[in-house]
């Protein structure tokens, strides 16, 4: 029995919220599927077999980390270097998870794990737009599911189509380059601020110069140098602002 002043049940199915999630997610699905398609093509064009590519897309479900791993796999980099690179590319999700997870603290552990695993950029952004505070509200889980399930389905459908399309197209078409272009498209909006832009430029140049480092460690060296640059620039900008006040 619930008393009138008990907290709303976050986890109970709530049909209007579920439908609201579906409705809010629909406009993004085409873009998600297209992005999946590009990653699918890039996976087989970088040398994975159809089975390996299917396994990767169904299990990993993280497009940017998958794309980042492809040139490293092609260059036969050590697995721990690929692992660290994927962690770094995924670090933005740590911030998202810290914002999203407390909304669902009451759910069983295993379900929390799976929801977290499935919540990518778009799902997190749209959920937090509707529920900016952690206050328990009816239908929160239904809304998240309404966003998450179609997102996952669209991504997988696009990706699987890309895998079969990619394996049908001759290598001379150079379709693997679409993967690089896709990384460009996700990076440009991430470097909208001056510190982020400086950091990325320095990281890009460092990676080129450090290309021949053993074990493909040039990439991680570039991340450290680039990140330090970004934080340094941010510090300088803040100090200037403080001096002008």
């Amino acid at each position, binding site marked *: 029995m619930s008393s009138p002043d008990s907290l709303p049940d976050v986890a109970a199915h709530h049909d209007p919220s579920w439908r609201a999630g579906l409705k809010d997610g629909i406009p993004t699905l085409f873009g998600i599927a297209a992005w999946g398609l590009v990653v699918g093509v890039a996976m087989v064009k970088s040398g*994975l077999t159809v089975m390996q590519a299917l396994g990767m897309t169904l299990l990993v479900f993280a497009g940017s980390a998958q794309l980042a791993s492809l040139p490293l796999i092609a260059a036969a980099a050590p697995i721990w270097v690929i692992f660290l690179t994927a962690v770094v590319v995924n670090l933005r999700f740590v911030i998202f998870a810290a914002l999203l997870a*407390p909304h669902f603290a009451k759910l069983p552990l295993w379900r929390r794990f799976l929801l977290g695993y499935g919540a990518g950029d778009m799902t997190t952004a749209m959920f937090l737009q509707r529920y900016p505070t952690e206050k328990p509200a009816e239908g929160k889980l239904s809304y998240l599911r309404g966003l998450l399930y179609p997102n996952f389905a669209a991504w997988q459908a696009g990706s699987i189509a890309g895998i079969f399309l990619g394996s049908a197209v001759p290598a001379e078409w150079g379709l693997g380059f679409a993967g*690089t272009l896709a*990384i460009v498209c996700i990076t440009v909006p991430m470097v909208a601020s001056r*510190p982020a832009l400086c950091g*990325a430029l320095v990281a890009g140049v460092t990676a080129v110069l450090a290309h021949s480092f053993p074990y493909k460690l040039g990439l991680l060296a570039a991340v450290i140098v680039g990140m330090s640059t970004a934080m340094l620039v941010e510090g300088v900008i803040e100090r200037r602002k403080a001096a002008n006040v």
Partner: protein
Amino acid sequence: MSELEIWLTIGALVCATAITRSSFWVIGEHVSIPTRVQEMLRYAPSCALAAIIGPDLLLDPQGTVEFSFHNYKLLAGAAAIAYYLARRNMLETIVFGMACFTALRLLL
């Protein structure tokens, strides 16, 4: 890489995704990340992605820097960045960049 190594790599990618996406969900409680750490978490991914793009666009297959008009990936990549900045549309940008790359490759 051998078949087994590739599957092990896929397993490592699953772990990388689980650690970054699910850790805070497993903890469950509200955790505030210090500003300084948030900055690092925010800047690292774009640096890593730039570190993948840089060598991809600038190095030839032998690993030497190719900064010239014969580097079609560099030219097409630069055109794609300009296109994306103007139109902010990912799919169009990829199609445009691929079209530039293919045209350069076939016509020059």
